[in-house]
């Protein structure tokens, strides 16, 4: 288990950093952060155990709104995490 966790993390970094990467590949890699972050986030806030959930019952989605606003205004990780955590506490009080 350790190897199948470590190898995917280690090989690309160690091997590719030795090589000259073609510009096309570098370009492609440039888009990985946005793509991977959006892909990780989407199911967390737009889905529940059964599937897509865009409704007022979805507390994670509701809390994501102020978090998005704070993130856009401040570009600050701490403010966003704290306002998001505050928002979900308040929302869960109101919606049970």
């Amino acid at each position: 288990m350790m190897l199948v966790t470590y190898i995917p993390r280690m090989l690309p970094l160690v091997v590719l950093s030795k090589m000259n990467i073609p510009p096309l590949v570098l370009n492609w890699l440039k888009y990985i952060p946005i793509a991977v972050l959006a892909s990780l986030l989407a199911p967390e806030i737009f889905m529940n155990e059964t599937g897509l959930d865009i409704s007022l019952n979805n507390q994670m989605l509701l809390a994501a709104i102020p978090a998005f606003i704070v993130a856009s205004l401040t570009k600050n990780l701490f403010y966003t995490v704290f306002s998001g955590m505050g928002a979900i506490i308040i929302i869960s009080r109101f919606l049970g």
Partner: protein
Amino acid sequence: MKRKEFLSGVKAALPIVFGYIPVGMAFGVLAAQIGLTVSEVFFMSLLVYAGSGQFVAVSLMSAGASAVAIIFTTFLVNSRHILMSAALVPHVRNIPRWSLPLISYGITDETFAVAMGEVTKEKKGELFFLGLNITSQSFWILSTVIGASVGNIIPDPRAFGLHFAMPAMFIALLIMQIKNKKGILLAMLAIGLSILFKSILPGNWNIILATILTATIGVMIEKWTVKYSPSSSG
């Protein structure tokens, strides 16, 4: 100077710590319930160190899956880190090669996201990465061990909003990565694709497929805009 750089990594890890505490404790509780000892949990978090990988492995163990099945599934769950590891390459050119195997040991969704946010602002040395990774993993190990030792007597993390720490962190880091309209478009595309793939495929194939497709479309849009409007840089 070196100390300062290491500490900047430690500081950058703090939002991750908020997220790891409840998830790690939840893992520890679950692992203890299916019969793993505290020291097994400790070594799993030390040696494997993969949030979703560990959850999947433990639920497979409780279902009586074979070792081969567990190892193969763990690999699939972790294969998204191939993309993250590769995406870090352009940002570690300045870093001594000896440290790369060590730095890559600590790549998780969260440390990757935070590191990417920081390296796009300014170049970072190996001590930053080590500070970030060691802090994050220490709290992961600690939380899983506490979860496994004290079990269900811990208070509900939801009361403190801790279950939203990780999504909020991804929101902030995503916003920080978006620099223009194309970024917004690609983020929305990845969100749509991730939801679509999650609805039709098991496990977390959605992350790998949505990421590969979105990055490829990003390159194609770039080629297209350069071809048709040589003055714009996207």
